């Protein structure tokens, strides 16, 4: 059984006209694709497109309505036992027992898969090593950070050395550093010949897949290598960078309504058929308005361009409907909000002998979008809970909306909106009933409640679904509804804790449109996110790590602060080069970035030479190697690694005086 002697031509995963119908809705509609050994296939699409259902059908935990699926040659319908022995499935919901330790969870799954004896011991050791989870063997799973939980779940799934791995949004809500670790594990598995089928909301992850299927309304509307998908775009993409991309977008949408203009981080992407002419035209328009920009150039489309291009249109209807109907004017309370919305100093919170937040001080001027970044478990949520008056600080203090966070918590609660990571909505209530409930909590009634309800329904574009049960809404819609409910009482400040986690790219854009609408009306938005391109949308960022602030400033300032240079390398199978390149003395760090590598160095010239040589030795052609402006993700990772390096040094010095 162990020695797999299948020919290259036998697919490890096969879907043939796979369909699933729930009552009268078609969740998966005649989906067909093959995934070969050692290949990773990405399934990308909006929420509710049928990604999860497809994975469930293939893992034989859901019976297909029609069509066939096969895993490692076994039919998922008739040979479900065989299928289950060959595959590992990681559902979106936790498969871990939080009251069991890391090792107990692993042992449990090892027993379930019948992994015994020396094989078991070796496998566990190996998995602990390459996931860097060894130090946490005895820790309860519930006490792990989000990123570590996902890694543990992957270890549990890999314990029996499966041939096929089905991953349902495995990096959802996981910070960039942990995501990178996670992908390193995946690449290793691919080299060992495992086939992986993954769904993801991160399109940079999709770029790394060998092939990608774009799924919408249960149908695969396009499939192929990322390069092939990009060729589907007839349009050319023009990109320009500016610190005022939102403003430019607004203006261009006004004067050139036929052109698609989208914000990508700190850039604006324009879809056009004639790049030369458009470039001149737009440049002229912007110069005349005095809007500054840089790096105006044609770029190859990214998968996100394709995604937004192919799926964005589909939703245009609803998008414009809500935009064209002017929302009821949001008025901020009679009292003028203080100029500084949040002002905290030396904020500290300890749990037992663990310091979750350590001596944190910052100010947020009113009307700003303030981004709060950091890895899982860095102390973001704890800080937000203190600011919202839900948790009292151990030390230090401050004011939110002019009220003291230790003493005037009731006042604070009346003057802020808070949207937590977890869904705060009642799934068994309808959209309207949820709004009524939250309106009631905030003391709204009668015509005032009616007015606010209509406003909330328009804002979240859920007017047509007012009678629908909340449970049936997709994640993106739920989040918009949750936001609407959180601001029914028109607070001057709103706290959003990972509001877009697990939301598809198009819905995420819509959500950020809402955030901008609120900021335009003078509401202060305090937001945490793991999507680094979203960090670029913030006016100011604060990076927190191990409970301490390690950087603060506007996205531009943080990027300028980056002293090292970044080289972008595109070549065949870049993931195989990471370890080799890390050995080069000229190179400080190497990380996967989209379909390529980002190489951190202090000496671009020397590093370029060294990389060229290393790849030439292996006869690998370099598709491109060029210095680039660092992205937010580069900045994030390098800042965190700097802290880690300093800690290491500090520890060593302590160790041997």
């Amino acid at each position: 059984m162990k020695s797999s002697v299948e020919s290259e031509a036998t697919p490890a995963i096969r879907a043939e006209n796979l369909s699933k119908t729930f009552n009268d809705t078609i969740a998966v509609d005649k989906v067909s694709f093959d995934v070969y050994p050692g290949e990773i296939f990405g399934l990308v699409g909006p929420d509710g497109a049928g990604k999860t259902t497809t994975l469930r059908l293939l893992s034989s935990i859901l019976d297909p309505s029609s069509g066939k699926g096969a895993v490692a040659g076994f039919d998922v319908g008739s040979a479900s036992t065989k299928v289950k022995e060959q595959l590992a499935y990681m559902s979106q919901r936790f498969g871990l027992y939080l009251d069991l330790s890391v090792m107990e969870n692993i042992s449990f799954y090892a027993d379930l898969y019948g992994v015994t004896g020396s094989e078991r011991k070796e496998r566990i050791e190996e998995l602990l090593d390459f996931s860097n989870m060894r130090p946490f063997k005895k820790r309860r799973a519930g006490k792990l950070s989000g990123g570590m939980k996902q890694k543990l779940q992957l270890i549990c799934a890999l314990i029996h050395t499966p041939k096929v791995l089905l991953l349902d949004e495995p990096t959802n809500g996981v910070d960039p550093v942990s995501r990178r670790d996670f992908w390193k594990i995946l690449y290793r598995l691919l080299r060992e010949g495992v086939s992986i089928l993954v769904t993801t909301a991160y399109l940079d992850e999709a770029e790394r897949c060998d092939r990608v299927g774009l799924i919408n309304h249960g149908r695969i509307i396009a499939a192929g290598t990322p390069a092939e998908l990009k060729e589907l775009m007839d349009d050319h993409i023009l990109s320009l960078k500016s610190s005022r991309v939102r403003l430019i977008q607004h203006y261009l949408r006004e004067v050139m309504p036929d052109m698609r203009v989208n914000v990508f981080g700190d850039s604006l992407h324009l879809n056009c058929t004639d790049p030369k002419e458009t470039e001149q035209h737009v440049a002229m328009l912007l110069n005349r308005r005095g809007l500054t920009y840089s790096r105006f150039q044609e770029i190859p489309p990214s998968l996100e361009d394709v995604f937004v291009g192919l799926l964005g249109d589909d939703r245009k209807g609803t998008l414009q409907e809500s935009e064209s109907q002017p929302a009821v004017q949001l008025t901020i309370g009679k009292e003028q909000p203080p100029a500084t919305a949040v002002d905290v100093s030396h904020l500290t919170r300890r749990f037992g002998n663990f310091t979750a937040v350590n001596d944190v001080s910052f100010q947020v001027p009113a009307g700003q979008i303030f981004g709060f970044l950091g890895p899982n478990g860095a102390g973001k949520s704890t800080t937000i809970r203190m600011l919202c008056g839900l948790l009292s600080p151990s030390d230090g203090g401050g004011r939110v909306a002019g009220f003291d966070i230790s003493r005037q918590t009731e006042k604070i609660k009346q003057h802020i909106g808070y949207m937590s990571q977890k869904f705060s909505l009642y799934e068994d209530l309808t959209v309207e009933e949820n709004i009524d409930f939250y309106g009631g909590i905030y003391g709204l009634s009668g015509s005032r409640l009616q007015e606010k309800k209509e406003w909330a329904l328009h804002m979240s574009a859920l007017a047509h679904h007012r009678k629908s049960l909340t449970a049936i809404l997709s994640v993106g819609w739920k989040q918009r509804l949750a936001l609407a409910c959180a601001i029914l009482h028109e607070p001057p400040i709103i706290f959003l804790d990972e509001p877009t986690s697990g939301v598809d790219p198009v819905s995420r854009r819509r959500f950020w449109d809402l955030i901008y609408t609120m900021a335009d009306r003078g509401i202060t938005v305090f937001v945490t996110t793991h999507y680094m391109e979203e960090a670029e949308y913030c006016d100011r960022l604060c990076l927190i790590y191990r409970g301490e602030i390690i950087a603060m400033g506007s996205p531009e300032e943080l990027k300028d602060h980056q002293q090292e240079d970044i080289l972008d390398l595109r070549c065949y199978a870049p993931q195989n080069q990471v370890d080799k390149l890390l050995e080069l003395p000229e190179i400080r760090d190497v990380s996967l970035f989209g379909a390529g590598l980002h190489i951190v160095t202090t000496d671009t010239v020397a590093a370029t030479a060294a990389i060229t040589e290393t790849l030439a030795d292996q006869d690998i052609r370099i598709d491109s190697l060029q210095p680039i402006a660092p992205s937010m993700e580069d900045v994030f990772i390098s800042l965190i690694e700097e802290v880690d390096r300093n800690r290491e040094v500090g520890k060593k010095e302590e160790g041997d005086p």
Partner: protein
Amino acid sequence: MKLRRLWAISRKEGLHIIRDWRSLVLALVIPLILVLLYGYALTLDLRDVPTMVWDQSRSAESRELLSLFQGSPYFSLIDFPDNYRDLQTGLDRGRAMVALIIPADFSSRVKNGKPVQIQVITDGSDANTSRLATTYVTAISGIYGHGVSLEKVRRNGREPIKPVVDLVIRVWYNSDLRSQNVLIPGIIALVMIVVAAMLTSVTVAREWETGTMEQLISTPLHRSELIFGKVIPYFVIGMTDVLIAVVIGKTIFHVPIVGNSGLLFGFSALFLSGALFFGMTLSIVMKSQVLASQTSIMAGFLPTLILSGFVFAIENMPLPLQFLTYIVPARYFITILRGIYLKGIGIEILWIEGLMLGIYTLIMVFLAHRKLKFKLE
């Protein structure tokens, strides 16, 4: 069924129980409390009935009668008012349950051998006690009357006439007629059904609610491994509870075990299994922890309390209800327990009840398997 996977599930389930120490304490303390509560509170014996006496006679004869009451464990003379009003107030307020009124001519009529009337008033709002008390009063006055006539016959120098029928009453199995001896076995059944069904009713539902079930069903795990694996640790807890109940019964309530205690634990294991699989089936069907545990308490506790013959005699129930009792497993278990505890009988008589419990358990195991779908819907 692979032993290793069965063991993996059991071990994991055991860890859940140990980690959540509150539920463990609950599982061990609830039976303790239930046994003590029912053992003390639920007694059907008539003892120390508060009695008021208006003795209008105040004679040696009346005192002799009253001394019989005083000497009986069933009555306790609490007050001796000398008017009717006080008597009534005592009964109204519930201070007394029985009132005796001895007429002024009691002494002379007894002496002259004339029939005499004693008025006995009992509190009928507690029908059961009232009925029992009346019987005892009748018995005591009978004894008194018998003593008086014997005395008269002797004084006249004649041989007393021997009664034609001389009753020789012997109560088997529970010679003191202690109701606790009868109730404690029933309490064991009650405790077991409540604790067992409550414990297992959350286990499968919890996996669905936290989402771990989706992961479990994607592994080679079989239904029977999950069902039996989950039951094992709760079985251990359940048997501990039986031990606790038996020990308390023996030490605190002094209920002797006449029969074979090995057999007692054997049958308990069978009944416990049925109850555990019953809770498990509820958990599988309901898929919600709250719903399943509430249902298990309702569906386990009430029939056991009412329809098992624990307190209320099945023979006195209307016929349709009597039929219903046949599907209450505690009915058979209580028969078994009383058989072993009091009668000391063995498997040669109790095998029918044992068979019924076995069938019940098998049905529950079958239902649990039938209802547990290793597929999403």
